[in-house]
C-alpha cells in the first residue's frame, strides 16, 4: 500500500509540453485510471511515475518520500506496457523470472516462483514456451506475471486491455482486479477508453492536452460531468443548448427544472444520458415530459437505441427492454425528463453551431461563472 502524490509534474519534449503541471493524489491500494485521448500526456505521466522519464518539473512522492531522482530499477514501481514487451529470446518462464534474476535470486528458486506466478495468471505449464508461441492474451498475462513476481509496491499498467479481443478482456480485467485486491497494490492504469477506465478503476483522472481536466469516481463522469468536453468524452449523446433561469433551463424542448448546483453560468448545455430518459405514456414522477417523433431505432443486442426528434432537437434514447419494439419511425413518443436525470455543463456563447431552435432564446451574455475548476475549453467533436 503506497500512497502516490504527483506534484506539478511537467514534461516537455523540445517546445512541446506533453504533461503540464499534473498534481494528483493516488490512494494506496486503489486503482486509479489516467484517462484521455491519445497525446493527452497520460503515458508520459505513467513513465514519470515509473521513473522511465525524467520530469522537466515537479515531483513524484511515494508515501511522502520524494522519489523523483530514484532510478526506475530501484523505485519499486513496475510498469507493464501495452505491447507486452516480452523478451523474444527468453521463454515465458525466463521472462517472468527476469526481475528475480536481476535481484540475484538463484536459478532453481526463480524457476519455482515463476511457475507459481504463471499458475496464478492461468498459464500453468507454459513456462517453456517462447513468446512467439503464445497468443496475444497469453503474452499479456506473462507480462503481468513478470511484474507480479517482483511483489511491487506500485503496479503501472499501460492500456492493459487494449490489445485483447472482447472475450479475453473480461478475464484479464478480473485477473487484474483480483491480484490487485489480494496484494493491496496501488495500481495506475492508463487508457484512452472510458469504458476500460470505468470497469477497472475506483478513481479516474481525465487528462486533456497534458492537463488534469476532471478527477473523481467513475460515476461522476457520466452523471455529473464538469464540462462539455468531459460529457462528450464519456459519450454524452444529448447536449441541448439552453439558458439558465433560476432552477430552470430554457431550451427548445421547453423550460425544464434541473437539480440544484449544476455547473455553468447563464449559458449551458443541458445533458441527459440516453438511458435516463423515461419512455412511455406514464409520465415521470415529477411530470416533466416532452413529445417527439421517432426518426429511427435499432436493436443493439442488449438494448434498443432510438433517435427521437423533439422541437427540432434530436435526442438519443436507450431502452433496456422491448418498449420500443413496436415503435417504428414516424410514431409519436412521450419522453419523461425527470429533473434528477438532467445535468448542465457550461456553454460558451461563441462555441460552434447551436441547434437552430436555441437561437430563439435571444442574445446570450458571454460570461462563464467560476463553478468549474478547469479552464473553459474549446468545443470538441462528439
Amino acid at each position, binding site marked *: 500500500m503506497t500512497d502516490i502524490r504527483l506534484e506539478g509534474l511537467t514534461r516537455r519534449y523540445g517546445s512541446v509540453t506533453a504533461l503540464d503541471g499534473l498534481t494528483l493524489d493516488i490512494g494506496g491500494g486503489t486503482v486509479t485510471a489516467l484517462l484521455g485521448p491519445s497525446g493527452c500526456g497520460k503515458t508520459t505521466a505513467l513513465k514519470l511515475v515509473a521513473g522511465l522519464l525524467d520530469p522537466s518539473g515537479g515531483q513524484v512522492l511515494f508515501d511522502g518520500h520524494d522519489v523523483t531522482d530514484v532510478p526506475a530499477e530501484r523505485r519499486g*514501481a513496475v510498469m507493464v506496457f501495452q505491447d507486452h*514487451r516480452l*523478451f523474444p529470446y527468453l521463454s515465458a518462464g525466463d521472462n517472468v523470472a*527476469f*526481475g528475480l534474476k*536481476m535481484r540475484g535470486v538463484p536459478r532453481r528458486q526463480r524457476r519455482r516462483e515463476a511457475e507459481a506466478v504463471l499458475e496464478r495468471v492461468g498459464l500453468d505449464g507454459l513456462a517453456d514456451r517462447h513468446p512467439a508461441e503464445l497468443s496475444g492474451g497469453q503474452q499479456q498475462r506473462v507480462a503481468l506475471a513478470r511484474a507480479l513476481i517482483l511483489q511491487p509496491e506500485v503496479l503501472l499498467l499501460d492500456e492493459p486491455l487494449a490489445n485483447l479481443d472482447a472475450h479475453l478482456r473480461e478475464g484479464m480485467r478480473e485477473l487484474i482486479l483480483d491480484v490487485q485486491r489480494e496484494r493491496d497494490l496501488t495500481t495506475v492504469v492508463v487508457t484512452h477508453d472510458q469504458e476500460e477506465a470505468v470497469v477497472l478503476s475506483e478513481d479516474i483522472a481525465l487528462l486533456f492536452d497534458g492537463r488534469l481536466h476532471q478527477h473523481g469516481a467513475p460515476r461522476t463522469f457520466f452523471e455529473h460531468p464538469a464540462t462539455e468536453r468531459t460529457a462528450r468524452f464519456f459519450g454524452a449523446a444529448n447536449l441541448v443548448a439552453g439558458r439558465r433561469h433560476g432552477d430552470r433551463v430554457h431550451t427548445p424542448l421547453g423550460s425544464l427544472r434541473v437539480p440544484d448546483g449544476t455547473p455553468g453560468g447563464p449559458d449551458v448545455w443541458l445533458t441527459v444520458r440516453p438511458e435516463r430518459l423515461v419512455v412511455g405514456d406514464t409520465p415521470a414522477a415529477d411530470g416533466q415530459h416532452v413529445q417527439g417523433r421517432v426518426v429511427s431505432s435499432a436493436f443493439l443486442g442488449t438494448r434498443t437505441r432510438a433517435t427521437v426528434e423533439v422541437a427540432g432537437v434530436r435526442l438519443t434514447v436507450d431502452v433496456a427492454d422491448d418498449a420500443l419494439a413496436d415503435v417504428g419511425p414516424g410514431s409519436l413518443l412521450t419522453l419523461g425528463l425527470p429533473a434528477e436525470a438532467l445535468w448542465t455543463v457550461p456553454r460558451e456563447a461563441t462555441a460552434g453551431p447551436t441547434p437552430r431552435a436555441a437561437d430563439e432564446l435571444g442574445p446570450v451574455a458571454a460570461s462563464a461563472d467560476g463553478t468549474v475548476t478547469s479552464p473553459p475549453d474549446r468545443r470538441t467533436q462528439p
Partner: protein
Amino acid sequence: MTAVDARQVQGSSAPAGVAGQPQGTGRSVVVGAMLLLLLAPFVPLVLASLAEGYFFPQVLPDRWSTRAWRIVLDPSGRTWSALVDTVTIGVAVMVLSLVVAIPAGRVLGTRRFRGKRVVELVLLTPVLVPAVAVAIGIHVVFLRLGLAGGIPGVVLAHLIPATPYVILLSAGVFANADLELEAQARSLGASWWRTRLHVTLPLVAPGLAVAALFGFLVSWGQYVLTLVIGGGRVVTLPILLFATASGGDASVTAATALFHSLPAVVLLVATTRVLGGQGFATFGGTR
C-alpha cells in the same frame, strides 16, 4: 542514396512476390543467377591453378599439375605468414571499428537530430574518395608519426574505409531492434549495465556480427592502403597476390587468388547460414 531508398528500389525491381520478397520459382531463378554470377569467375581460376601451361584459346588445360598449389601451400612459403598478418589486421580492424560503430550506430539508428544527413554523408566520404588519394595523404602523416611500415599503421589506415561500413550497418541493426525492451528491463529492476548485457546485447548481437564481418572483409581486401602505409614491409594476402601476379606465373597467381578469396567466401556463407537469412533482413537502413 540512403539505405531506405535502396530498399525501396530493391522492392520495386523484384520480379515476383510481395514487398520485394520473390516467391517460388521466381525466387529460385534469382538465387541461381546470383550464385552463378558469384561463382563463375572462380571456374577459370580453379582450372588455371591446376594447369601446367594454359593458353588462349584452350577451354581446358593440356596438362594438369599440382605444382602451383604445392608452392602456395608450402609451409615455409610466404603464404602462411601473409595469412597471419591479414587475419591479425582484419581482426583488429573489426574490433576497433565495432567499438566506434556500436555507440555511433545506436545514435544514428535511433535518434533524429539536426544535421543527421550531413553526418551520414561525412561517414560515406571515405567510401567515395579514391583510396590512392587517401593513402598518399595519410602516408605523409604516418611517416611523421612513425606509424608507416608497421601493422598498427596499416590497421589505422584500414579503419578509414572499414568504419563507415560498420557504422552504417550497425545503425540499421539498432534502427530495427526493439529497444523499448530496455525500458521494460529497467522497470523490472535491471541496472543500466545489466540492461545492456541481458537485453540490448541479445537483440543486436546477430546483426552486429554481420556488421563486424563486413569490417573484417573490407580490411581483408585492402591493397592500396596496405601497400602505401605498409611500405612493402607488411605483406598481406592482397600484397602477395599482386606480387605473384607481376611475377608472371599464371598458375601460382590463380592458386594465390583462390587462397585469398576462399576464406572470405566460406566466412560469408557460414554467417548467413548461422543467421538463417535473418541477418541481412535486420539491415533496414537508418530511421
